[in-house]
């Protein structure tokens, strides 16, 4: 695994001069030709990293992920400026099908399991783009069951009747079935009990360490996300307002104050917040 990873790096390096696995450069996204949602977002995901995309509701996290996986077209959104490179190649014009074949797959917010299919059938749909034969797909299925033993127990239940946590696991497992190099994970903690959130993040961490899968994850649960992420970006109103290593962001006074709800001293007024943010560099 390690050798192939470095080989991929070298190949990409030849094309670009050793860039990150995924690089988003100053993209602007407009929905329905009028609604400007992303106003210039740039971010990098180095190979083998977990990168967190943080921010409040409507900050543009989901839109960023969909711009990368190219699911925007199905919602009448389009990337009007900037570029997206994956392994050194421009990918903003590719279909989701092409991207999945190249190893980028999205797990959508709200899980989106195929309700009337069984858990196992759900997982198998993830292998739609695979062309390496049944035996390899069966092996991947075993791998998914290894990481999510619970899914093995529920394999023949209709996905619509499984619990929220099991559905989230199904959705992640389904993405794994495509043999991805990179998973775009949208709000995995949504609607789940804290203990389950922890469990899911542990698995994400394990997949990252053992399988070498890189993650770009959008999260509102800043504390958990930053604990597991190598690097974090904070989005606000369609712009990146702050970025840094996970542990540093977790220590940052402002992040503590505004995203973790931990106050270091007296409460500052909202006016100060705005002022502070205006001085931040827009990226």
């Amino acid at each position, binding site marked *: 695994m390690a050798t192939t990873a470095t080989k991929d790096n070298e190949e990409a390096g030849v094309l670009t001069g050793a860039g990150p696995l995924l690089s988003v450069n100053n993209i602007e996204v407009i929905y329905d030709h009028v609604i400007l949602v992303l106003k210039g977002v740039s971010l990098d995901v180095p190979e083998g990293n977990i990168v967190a995309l943080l921010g409040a509701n409507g900050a543009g996290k989901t839109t960023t992920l969909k711009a990368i*996986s190219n*699911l925007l077209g*199905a*919602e*009448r959104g389009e990337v009007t400026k900037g570029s997206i490179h994956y392994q050194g190649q421009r990918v903003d014009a590719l*279909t*989701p*099908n092409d*991207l*999945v*074949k190249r190893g980028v*797959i*999205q*797990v*959508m917010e709200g899980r*989106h*399991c*195929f*309700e*009337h*299919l069984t858990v196992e*059938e*759900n997982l*198998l*749909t*993830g*292998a*739609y*783009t695979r062309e390496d034969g049944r035996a390899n797909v069966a092996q991947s299925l075993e791998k998914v069951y290894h990481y999510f033993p619970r899914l093995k127990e529920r394999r023949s239940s*209709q996905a*619509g*009747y499984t619990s929220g946590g099991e559905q989230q696991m199904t959705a992640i497992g*389904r*993405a794994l079935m*495509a043999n991805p190099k990179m998973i775009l994970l949208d709000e995995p903690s949504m609607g789940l009990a804290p203990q389950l959130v922890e469990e899911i993040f542990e698995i994400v961490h394990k997949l990252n360490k053992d399988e070498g899968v890189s993650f770009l994850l959008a999260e509102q649960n800043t504390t958990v996300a930053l604990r597991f992420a190598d690097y974090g970006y904070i989005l606000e109103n369609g712009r990146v307002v702050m970025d840094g290593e996970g542990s540093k962001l977790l220590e940052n006074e402002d992040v503590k104050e505004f995203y973790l709800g931990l106050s270091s001293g007296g409460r500052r007024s909202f006016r100060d917040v705005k002022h502070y943010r205006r001085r931040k560099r827009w990226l």
Partner: protein
Amino acid sequence: MEFLNAVFVAPFLDIADSPVFFAEVVIGGLMSGVMYSLVALGFVLIFKASGVFNYAQGAMVLFAALTLVGAMEKGAPLWLALLIALGVMVALAFAVERFMLRKLINQEGIILFMATIGLNFVLEGAGQIAFGSDVKRLDVGLPDNSFEVGGILFNTFDLSAAFIGAAMVTTLALFFQFTPMGRALRAVADDHQAALSVGIPLKTIWVVVWSVAGAVALVAGIMWGAKAGVQFSLVLIALKALPVLILGGFTSVPGAIVGGLIIGVGEKVAEVYWGPTFGGAIEGWFAYMLALAFLLFRPQGLFGEKIIERV
């Protein structure tokens, strides 16, 4: 009193009086039910995979049958004519995806429905321009004679129709349940967005679905054409498929079959035993009344997918 007697008592006495005749009526109904099911199947396939109610399914049946007859009139042997007709239906599927569905991606279901009404007129017109509007005889070499088992008359043509219908339904059910493509089709039916996100290309799926629906239309066209002649009125049997769908559920392949059989048997039995009370010809509207009752009490049909709701 006399009316109540004619509705609630007399028909059942008649049935008890001559069970053999009743069986014959039921079997006749089952046979025409299979024919309804064949048409309904085409609707279900497209509705399942794309949520589109394909108004043009009836026109597709006519178009497929016309192509087959047209090819045979030009001197092609049956097998070649079948291949040509099948090829034309697949080509039609590609054209529908390329010129209709692709332009309407992400539109409301009702807009797609309107588009299929347009397609309906195009197919009706094109079929008649190319092959004329005369009633054509279609002879596919199915035996058409009768034999008796235990006093009940069977028709070999109806039997082979039933057999072909059953074979097709089994094939489709296996295809949907056990192949990766079938699984992908069911996935698309459940959640377009999620299907896209795992890399299932919707364009391919649509071409496959419309091709399969085209093939089903061809089979339905052959059976109806051989029975009643290939003519413009084939388009209208699509209307009979509607109550079948309401009964069986728009999303269920087995539902289309069972719905078709119930409608077939129901209208024959109703016609024979209750017809005289209502002045006859209730075969024409019985199916719609039944559908209305179902809409009131079980709108998802007998086998339609339950709306899964977790609380």
